[in-house]
């Protein structure tokens, strides 16, 4: 089985395989390590880190929907300083890519976060979250504003020579426009997609089921939308794509790669099956063997329309 090359080369980053664990769905990596071997995974993306610790939104933060879920965690995180002090160390025992996801409420704060984190050797790269729909200050607004995405990319690019991906919002008319901006400002990749804005109401109290009123929709329900966004970027922007959204079986990984993704991230499925990433790897190899594919990355964007 080992004759297939699963590795992925991205600018400034090589992954042993294309499967990353998505931001906000594995915390800082410790807990999921109880159920899965992080050494076998392509990499882990941290929960969004902000300059100062954030408490996050009041409960209720999540609600299940048909083959999906809404979340409004509100970027609860320990902050960059505490992360460097007590969290990043855990990864020194693991041989897997570590990508820090960064969220902020101003372009300058993004810059500051990346600068502080950049000096930590263990960190292999950054994912800039300009698309979190669940915080009032910034969040969705950044992801919808081409000028701000341009500025944030430009500033953070200036602060690191490590891998830099911009995580795009799907809640826009033309996501590829933002991918092009990311490319122009020097990003190494774009991550697509973050969650779709959604909501749900309790029909007896007539209140939103989520305290924050709206939340971000993730899970298998959104997969067709995520695939279409990846395809749109692939056709209209020349930048590597990390495909995210609703991946729940190994076939979905292949589908995202065919549509244009160089690597993928697993999100919601980690909650259901914390061992998913590893379970998929054998199937990916097996698929390549039967399809006579030497290197999995040949699949990227290999669709025929």
């Amino acid at each position, binding site marked *: 089985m080992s004759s297939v090359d699963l590795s992925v080369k991205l600018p400034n980053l090589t992954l042993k395989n294309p499967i990353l664990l998505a931001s906000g769905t594995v915390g800082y990596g410790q807990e999921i390590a109880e159920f899965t071997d992080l050494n076998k995974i392509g990499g882990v993306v941290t929960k969004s880190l902000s300059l100062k610790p954030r408490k996050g939104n009041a409960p209720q*933060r*999540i609600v*299940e929907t048909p083959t999906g879920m809404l979340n409004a965690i509100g970027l609860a995180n320990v902050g960059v300083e505490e992360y460097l002090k007590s969290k990043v160390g855990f990864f020194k025992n693991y041989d897997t890519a570590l990508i820090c996801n960064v969220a902020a409420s101003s372009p300058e704060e993004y810059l500051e976060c990346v600068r502080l984190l950049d000096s930590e050797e263990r960190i292999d790269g950054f994912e800039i979250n300009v698309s979190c729909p669940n915080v009032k200050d910034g969040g969705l607004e950044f992801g919808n504003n081409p000028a701000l995405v341009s500025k944030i990319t430009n500033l953070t690019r200036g602060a690191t020579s490590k891998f830099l991906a911009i995580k795009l919002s799907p809640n826009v008319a033309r996501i590829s426009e933002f991918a092009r901006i990311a490319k122009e400002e020097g990003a190494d990749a774009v991550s697509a997609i973050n969650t779709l804005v959604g909501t749900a109401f309790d029909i007896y109290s007539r209140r939103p089921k989520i305290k924050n009123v709206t939340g971000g929709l993730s899970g*298998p329900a959104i997969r067709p939308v995520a695939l279409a966004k990846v395809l749109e970027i692939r056709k209209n922007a020349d930048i590597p794509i990390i495909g995210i959204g609703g991946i729940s079986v190994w076939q979905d990984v292949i589908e995202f790669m065919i549509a244009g993704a160089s690597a993928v991230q697993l999100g919601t499925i980690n909650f259901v099956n914390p061992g998913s990433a590893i379970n998929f790897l054998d199937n990916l190899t097996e698929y390549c063997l039967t399809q006579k594919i030497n290197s999995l990355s040949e699949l990227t964007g290999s669709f025929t329309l």
Partner: protein
Amino acid sequence: MYQALACVTDNKKIAENIHLIEFEAPSIANVIAPGQFLNLRVNDNLFPLLRRPFSICDVNNDRISVMFNVMGEGTKILSQKKLNDYVDILGPLGNGFNLTFNEKKTVIISGGLGAAPFPYLTKELLNRDKEIITIVGGRSSQDIIKHGLTNLFITTEDGSEGLKGNVIDCLKDINNLLFETQYRVFTCGPNGMIKAIKKYFADNKIVVEASVESAMACGFGICQGCPIEHVQSEDTYKLICKDGPVFNLNDIII
């Protein structure tokens, strides 16, 4: 923590709408403690998508059991499991009840399906030679779950069984039994009841351990979906799944 594919060894209805399901799951059975919980995948497809959390109800050698109410799709599917079906279980999850304490007397207060974690707790307390008084409350006789509990004091709002009233009325009623001694309280049930208990014990030194619930996506600390305000950490929430589900009732804000 383990992810076990556990075989169903029993599944029966023990009262109107209440089921007890048992699994063979040695890895979990050997290490789980009262008050910890399990996160069950009730199906092998995408609907419902998320696991369902349940308190450990009892442990018998290699077998673990869960007591549940049929609420929605997930528990409906669970109620239909047959012998020899397999269910994917994560556990043990969270922190259970503290079992190392000096008080000799204990009071368990259970509201409705809050009874779920107490058969196992009862067994372990008796193993440790503790005395137990169990107060079981419900709206009416139908809601009274006695399974696996001992030394019962029953109270119903409509008076259809036991004392007419709620668990607080019952607590007052049996106060003399406690002889003003130190005792420990364990409770689980609807939020309203837990709030009332918190108030009742607010002024004295009695330790009350409460098992609380929340919507959960993961059950083991990776989604941040289950926050609870905690007196020891004003700037962050605690996570019910990881830091709880059992908390000292004095410490949490509910």
